[in-house]
């Protein structure tokens, strides 16, 4: 009986050990399975947590982006300004915009409208007031008023006031401008804006000195003399040709 009892105890211990081994193998195998990232299904809670951490905008990031955008505007940095716009960005400038009112699309549109407004200035200073920023998920609405003074190579000294409202979208880890609406309340400048490459044209029509606009002033001043010189040379050669021909005919 003693031997049999001993035998039974040994048999029970072997079962327990076998079960323990099986449990250990399962735990270690499962741990290795997840630790190595082989598992496809991570559970809904893990997925949600990861998504919120990597996809959402960091707190205060829109505020920083808006201020960086305004800084780029003040620095007349059109290249940086363009980076805030995507292919679907819509830009609309209206009101007393000094001839710049219109609609533009994407980075190229931003490049030409901001290039025209601040890209041709030799000095610029703007003051931001009434700045308000609201964020809802990955969308932000921004509004502010800009009082701008500066000196343009085209229209001379100017000052203007505009109310700006923008919709920003957080995508690809950065805030971009989806809509950019400028409502100009006022715009005044020394020289008139004209729809032509040569601002001197508008100045001359308005009885002002063409030299008031720095851009293209060299071409404007030199071109007439150059043209007269070229045409005079051609005319002289033509007359010389006729003279030679008449002389030969007389001989």
């Amino acid at each position, binding site marked *: 009986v003693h031997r049999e009892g001993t035998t039974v105890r040994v048999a029970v211990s072997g079962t327990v050990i076998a079960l323990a081994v099986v449990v250990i193998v399962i735990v270690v195998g499962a741990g290795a399975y997840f630790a190595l990232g082989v598992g496809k299904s991570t559970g809904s809670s893990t997925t949600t947590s990861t998504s919120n951490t990597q996809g959402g905008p960091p707190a205060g990031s829109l505020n920083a982006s808006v201020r960086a955008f305004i800084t780029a505007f003040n620095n007349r940095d059109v290249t940086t300004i363009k980076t805030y716009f995507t292919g679907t960005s819509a830009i609309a*400038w209206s009101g007393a915009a000094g001839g*710049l009112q219109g609609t533009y699309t994407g980075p190229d549109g931003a490049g*030409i409208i901001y*290039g*025209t407004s601040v890209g041709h200035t030799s000095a610029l200073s703007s003051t931001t007031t009434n700045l308000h920023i609201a964020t809802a998920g990955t969308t932000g609405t921004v509004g502010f008023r800009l009082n701008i003074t500066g000196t343009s190579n085209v229209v001379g000294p100017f000052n203007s006031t505009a109310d700006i409202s923008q919709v920003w979208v957080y995508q690809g880890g950065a805030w971009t401008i989806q809509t950019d609406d400028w409502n100009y309340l006022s715009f005044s400048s020394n020289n008139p804006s004209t*729809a032509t490459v040569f601002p001197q044209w508008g100045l001359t029509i308005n009885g002002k000195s063409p030299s008031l606009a*720095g*851009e*293209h002033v060299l071409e404007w001043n030199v071109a007439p003399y150059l043209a007269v010189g070229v045409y005079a040379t*051609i005319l002289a050669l033509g007359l010389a040709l006729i003279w030679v021909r008449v002389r030969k005919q007389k001989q």
Partner: protein
Amino acid sequence: METSWPGTWLLVAFVIFVTVGIFGALGWWQVYSRKASSGATEGNTGLLWLHLILFEVGVLGATAMMAAIGYVGGNVVATGGSPIVSAEAVRTQIIPPLSSDPNSVFFDMPPVIEAVFIGLSLLSQLVGFIALLTLKKTKAS
């Protein structure tokens, strides 16, 4: 037909191409043809070729640049942009500016290139006149 600046340059380009490029070439053909019929068929071959090449390059280049200005600038206006802003598209999207200084001539390249091509076409007229002077009657063999 309704046009507005700078899209008007497309029309200007076409008119200049027809008047200078086609009728100008016809005019020179008449001059050389009359000279040849009068027996003056020997001349400086290099000058004659130079006249032809400069004329074609100058006229085609100048009118193509005008058309590009009209197309690029006109596209801005046609899509709701300002004519004043279209000048910036013309300045930056056809030929990149060679200078970032707004007071430099090379800050706005299309007018510079346009002037170069017009200069070439005018130079071709000078070369043409000189080439005419070199024409002489063929010596009888």
